[in-house]
């Protein structure tokens, strides 16, 4: 590797050629402030927060895009640099809704942090402020352009990483704003609700639709029997909200916190994942045996589903007809569980805690009900759960580790890895292999589908038959993969797609990580590790061996893919316009 020598603040630094000054400085332990920069997603050099002085150069340069060169001398905190940054920030703040106290990103806002770090003590520029209408019509995402700093991180993630392009910069000059085409509400656009824009936003301009009040109300209503279920990925990140290291699983404390919040029953969506494997695995085997439509593509990720409906309607028949795990589990709770425990399903209120904001949209799709009972009544994100815990005076760190409620107390290791890219594929292969071979196979781990590479491929031989599989995460990768199938270049039998890069562990509803932490951590891999370690410790690691699942089919559904299973656990899809709802 070619190395380059330079000096930063007088300190000699040697870094690989191709590094930016920002990256070189971070390696040398020097923090250059950034705002529009986001690793792997946004490098536009437009906000001028990271400007540095290069000795001998005419103007200040943006460190996030300026490549290192042999012998240059960089000053990151000279008086000239500090003054330039501060003035730029003061100008940005002069047209910013500075209601920090009531902002959802209070204490977790990069603009606020910059303001402190750069020593802004007053806003010297008092000028016109543009008042923007708040778009809160989407069930998943709220856009408040009064808090937008036009950094374009959301645009870059939406357009370049996800290849959705629901928003862009519109108008010019002082009137510039990030908007959907023709300023339509996000809910009328081709937005897939993945929420990666929220994860990318440095301020409170993009947030989830807050449903915590609905949950508090339901809990306080004595008429309602309120059941909560938590997705696998939530346990891998919730701890970050309470000061734990990234990648610390907090399953036991989470269950304890939910019980203290007053939920009548605390269940694990991992059980729903195990049901999904029973149904989806059966669907795969049937399609392979009976010459059905292949490749079969997983349907757990509602962002991916809407993306497919907009951009790849010719693949709708490839989608598994399975509802996603929490929808399946909701349907089971209001039927099987209600019957078994003599509960009136009309009085049941099912809350899903999800690492995802697209699940909010999904739960409101009209298909997601049976006999006028909604499968799931309310979806909150990991962030909203953390907020509820804080608002209820629960000292999270001092909680004991508790278990989920009986039945469905122990889901399988297969269910828990659903939260990471490749996890649904691996869980399915564990069951499909056993069913097709008609015996208990020792192989549990399919490392070829693990990891954070954008598209993973493998050929798995089961019962003398080669099954070609592929896994894509992030919709840009999904698009690449589907294009290669459309063109006839690639063929597969089974594909897993998750909308968010990294899968659910880095979903749009997870705790927000700032740009600096993104540089220092491999967030996708570290959070995924929490799930794989839980899988390793699990007593049962194959969905079809979960005794609660065995009982569920024996007492209620009969067989996977039965008529009743289809009524409750399966769904259908609708082709949509490419760029509007």
């Amino acid at each position, binding site marked *: 590797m070619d190395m380059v020598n330079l000096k930063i603040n007088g300190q000699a630094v040697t870094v690989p050629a191709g590094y930016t000054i920002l990256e070189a400085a971070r390696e040398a332990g020097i923090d250059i402030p950034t705002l529009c920069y986001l690793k792997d997603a946004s490098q536009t050099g437009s906000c001028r927060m990271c400007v540095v002085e290069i000795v001998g150069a005419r103007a200040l340069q943006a460190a996030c895009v300026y490549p290192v060169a042999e012998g240059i001398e960089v000053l990151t905190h000279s008086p000239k640099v500090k003054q330039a940054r501060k003035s730029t920030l003061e100008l940005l703040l002069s047209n910013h809704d500075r209601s920090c106290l009531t902002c959802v990103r209070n204490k977790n806002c990069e603009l606020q942090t910059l303001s402190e770090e750069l020593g802004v003590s007053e806003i010297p520029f008092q000028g016109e402020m543009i008042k923007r*209408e708040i*778009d809160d*019509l989407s069930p998943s995402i709220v856009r408040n352009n009064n808090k937008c700093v036009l950094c374009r991180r959301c645009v870059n993630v939406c*357009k370049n990483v996800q290849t*959705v*392009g*629901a*928003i*862009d*910069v*519109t*108008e*010019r000059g002082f009137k510039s704003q990030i*908007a*959907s*085409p*023709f*300023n*339509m*509400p996000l809910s009328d*656009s*081709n937005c897939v609700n993945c929420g990666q824009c929220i994860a990318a936003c440095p301020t409170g301009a993009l947030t989830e639709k807050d449903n915590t009040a609905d949950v508090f109300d339901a809990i306080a209503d004595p008429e309602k029997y309120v059941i909560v279920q938590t997705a696998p990925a939530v346990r891998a990140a919730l701890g970050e909200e309470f000061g734990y290291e990234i990648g610390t699983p907090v399953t036991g404390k989470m269950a304890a916190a939910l019980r203290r919040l007053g939920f009548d029953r605390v269940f694990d969506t991992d059980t729903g994942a195990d049901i999904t494997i029973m149904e989806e695995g059966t669907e795969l085997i049937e399609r392979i045996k009976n010459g059905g439509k292949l490749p079969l593509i997983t349907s757990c990720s509602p962002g991916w589903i809407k993306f497919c409906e907009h951009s790849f309607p010719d693949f709708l028949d490839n989608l598994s007809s399975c509802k996603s795990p929490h929808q399946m589990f909701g349907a089971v709770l209001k039927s099987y569980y209600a019957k078994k425990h003599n509960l009136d399903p009309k009085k049941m209120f099912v809350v899903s805690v999800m690492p995802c904001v697209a699940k909010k949209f999904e739960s409101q799709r009209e298909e997601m009900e049976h006999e006028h009972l909604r499968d799931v009544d309310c979806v909150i994100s990991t962030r909203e759960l953390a907020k509820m815990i804080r608002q209820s005076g629960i000292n999270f760190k001092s909680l004991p580790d508790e278990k989920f409620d009986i039945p469905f107390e122990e889901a399988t290791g297969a269910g828990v890895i659903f939260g990471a890219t490749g996890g649904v594929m691996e869980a399915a292969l564990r069951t499909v292999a056993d069913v097709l071979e008609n015996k208990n196979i020792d192989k549990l781990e399919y490392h070829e589908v693990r990891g954070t590479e954008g598209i993973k491929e493998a050929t798995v031989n089961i019962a003398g038959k080669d099954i070609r599989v592929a896994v894509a995460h992030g919709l840009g990768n999904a698009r690449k993969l589907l294009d290669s199938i459309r063109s006839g270049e690639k063929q597969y039998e089974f594909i897993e797609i998750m909308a968010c890069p990294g899968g659910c562990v880095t979903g749009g509803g997870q705790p927000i990580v700032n740009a600096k932490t993104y540089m220092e951590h491999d967030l996708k891999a570290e959070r995924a590790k929490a799930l794989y370690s839980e899988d390793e410790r699990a007593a049962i690691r194959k969905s079809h061996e979960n005794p609660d699942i065995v009982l569920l089919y024996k007492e209620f559904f009969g067989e996977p893919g039965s008529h009743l299973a289809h009524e409750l656990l399966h769904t259908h899809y609708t082709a949509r316009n*490419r*760029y*509007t709802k």
Partner: protein
Amino acid sequence: MEEKKRMPFKGTKEQEQQLMEVIESYKGTDGAVIPVLHAAQDIYGYLPIEVQTMIAEGLNVPLAEIYGIVTFYTQFSINPKGQYKIGVCLGTACYVKGSGDILEKIKELLGIDVGECTPDGKFSLDATRCIGACGLAPVMTINDDVYGRLTVDDVADIFSKY
């Protein structure tokens, strides 16, 4: 986010055919969006959502990006021009003589903003730079007719002639 009433899109099959040929000739070329937008505006006179959507789908560029480009450059218009094109001069002399108030009055009378067209397609409104008739300030034009030394109260009477 409330939707304003707008003139219904009246594109013809022939216009669509023409646009498709333009898009086809630019497919796969870098920087195709702006020349295609120019051609589309020549064909249709303006760039409504229906036209921008055809371009987005044809060139494989998100509609939001197309819309961003159209709203950035002043030579592109998302609204049609009316049968009668009103121009209110906001040059220095006219402005000093109160053409700003006249513009406000017109907006109020027609219920449209600068750059827009009434839903019936009759009037469209633009603010212009100096048109060289400073001696008559403040000045308004309607197609080729020039109205000078205007007062706010004249506007309604003038419109009734059209």
